[in-house]
């Protein structure tokens, strides 16, 4: 057992995947850094991406497999599709998910549809690693989560780990998976850590996780919101309210069974999602519960989400934008009294 940060756990999963399968390659902007200055000492692997997550891969595996690109997302995302269809297992980095717009066509219309539209004869085993999340004071164009944007598209799988254990296990599976996977890393979680076994097995996609067992209220928390859910549950425990926390971990496919079991147990549900509310994971999960567990519910599902606004820069506004521990506690108390 070793304590690992999310950042290191992801790096470990990448290294392990590179070692296990020579067809795994990585492409992205400044995933190594220092291109064009190789003749100087200390320039190699100067960046490892803006958060240093891919640092060391270039040095270990070389420029043929670890390729810095130009700012041409449509180009290298498209290239990943062709490479995947013909035998490689490309991982591409979308530096911030906010840049999805400049290469969304590749994911929405090619990666997602190749298998279906061409008669099920092809597959596109690629992974998009991307950085999501508010709380970094990074403003409207570097702070979104956009989980539902990809989850909406049939043919894409969507993964969003909370801790280092899940990050490593889920990335290992994502790379082995034969479908295109969007793997979302939250910038505020990179430096958080937990125990990660050195020989951790891949965690299957589509399997959620009960982070805390409880009996009064179910909190379904999406990625970083698990942090606030845990804090809320700790507080509420002091006044004898017992919360169950469900972390779906993957959003397409979604572990509906796990969610429904918890709903059956508590009959009271809160969904916490840092994204905008309309057509979100929160609204999707809430609607599924209403449809499939109507008779188990003792109250309407409560959604706690960001407001229907872009992410503002200034701290007081951004803090208001992001769901909080307090909002969860208030909602739980409201449900408890039902």
């Amino acid at each position: 057992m070793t304590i690992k940060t999310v950042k290191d756990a992801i790096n470990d999963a990448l290294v392990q995947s590179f070692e296990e399968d020579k067809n795994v390659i990585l492409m992205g902007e400044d995933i190594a850094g220092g291109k064009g200055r190789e003749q100087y000492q200390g320039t190699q692997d100067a960046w490892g991406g803006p958060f240093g997550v891919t640092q060391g891969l270039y040095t270990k595996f070389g420029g043929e497999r670890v390729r810095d690109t130009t700012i041409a997302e449509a180009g290298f995302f498209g290239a990943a599709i062709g490479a995947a269809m013909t035998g490689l297992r490309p991982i591409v980095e979308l530096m911030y998910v906010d840049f999805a717009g400049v290469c969304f066509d590749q994911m929405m219309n090619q990666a997602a549809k190749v298998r279906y539209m061409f008669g099920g004869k092809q597959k596109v085993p690629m992974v998009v690693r991307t950085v999501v999340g508010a709380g970094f004071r990074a403003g409207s164009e570097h702070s979104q989560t956009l989980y539902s944007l990809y989850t909406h598209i049939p043919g894409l799988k969507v993964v969003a780990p909370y801790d280092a254990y899940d990050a490593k296990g889920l990335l290992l599976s994502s790379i082995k998976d034969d479908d295109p996977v969007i793997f979302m890393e939250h910038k505020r979680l990179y430096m958080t850590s937990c125990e990660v076994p050195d020989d951790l097995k891949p965690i299957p996609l589509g399997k959620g996780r009960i982070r805390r067992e409880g009996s009064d209220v179910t909190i379904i928390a999406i990625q970083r919101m698990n942090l606030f859910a845990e804090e809320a549950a700790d507080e509420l425990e002091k006044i004898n309210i017992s919360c169950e926390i469900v972390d779906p971990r993957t959003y397409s496919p979604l572990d509906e069974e796990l969610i429904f079991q918890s709903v059956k147990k508590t009959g009271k549900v809160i969904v916490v999602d840092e994204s905008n509310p309309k057509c979100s994971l929160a609204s999707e999960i809430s609607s599924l519960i209403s449809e499939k567990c109507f008779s188990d519910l003792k109250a309407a599902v409560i959604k706690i989400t960001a407001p229907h606004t872009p992410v503002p820069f200034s701290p007081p506004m951004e803090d208001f934008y992001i769901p909080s521990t307090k909002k969860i506690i208030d909602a739980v108390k409201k449900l408890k009294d039902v």
Partner: protein
Amino acid sequence: MIEKEKINWIYKKIFTIRFFEERIKKIAKEKTVPGYLHTCIGSEAICVGVMAALNQDDWISSTYRNHGHAIAKGCELNEITSEIYGRKTGICKGRGGSMHISDFSKGMLGSFGIVAAGPAVVLGAALQEKINKSNKTCVSFFGDGAIHNGAFHEAAGLAKLWDIPMIFVCENNGYAEATATDWHLNTKELSDITKAYDMLSYIGDGNNVFKVYDISKKAINEAKQKNTPIFLEFKNYRFSGQYEGDTQLYQPQEEIDKAKQNDPIKLAKENSSKYGLNKNDLEKIINEAKEEVDKAFDFADTQPWPQPEDALEEVYVNYPVEINR
């Protein structure tokens, strides 16, 4: 000949931008201010030289590296600084932050954080000028890295096809993040990419503010006369990292030292007597610039924070705010 008033303006702006960015570097180190900060040390001559050829109501777009463009275009220093501090009196009411400094009333269409988002927006403004037979100049600022992005190429192609007299200003500062420009270019000169669009292009020394001014002025006239877009490439050096806090491991010291010999501020100082400024004139301008910058930072520090719920305002022109919650 360039008139005295303009010379003074140029000197004032170029020093203001340098002092401003040095203060930004300082507050970044002290962690006074939240968020990403991209400074433009080394770009001052491009910001000021191009803007000297524009009127206040001409249109520009900028990027996350926008402080210099905003200052040169005439945005209020106090408002820029307050925005960076996240205050309610900021130029974007604290919603945008450093990466999105923009004042529409000063001819800034926007500072976009997505690389290569600007050129097409400026193309649209220029199209409007053409349709309305107005004559405002339209300029898009972007970096060397942006020329690989499809959005830039699509804007360039349309601008040429539609005979739109807009100016593409590419600031070739040697790096796109941690990637050297000489590595990422496929052509010998960056501006060779315009050949595919049969677009006029000129290369200029981006460290010499008067050369930048001269080329810009000529290009604007030529573009309007010939009804055609023009691409300007200005070569300079990015002394700052990609953002404040960047280790800059990939920028060799000998390269930085060499570039320092052509530091735009150094060149401006050396050229001052040639432009009729004596030592006292120059000192006076420098002191004024420094004082104004200091005042702006003092001002920002005292400004009120926005209310949390201000986040809900102005998502749309016409929309019930209550349902935004």
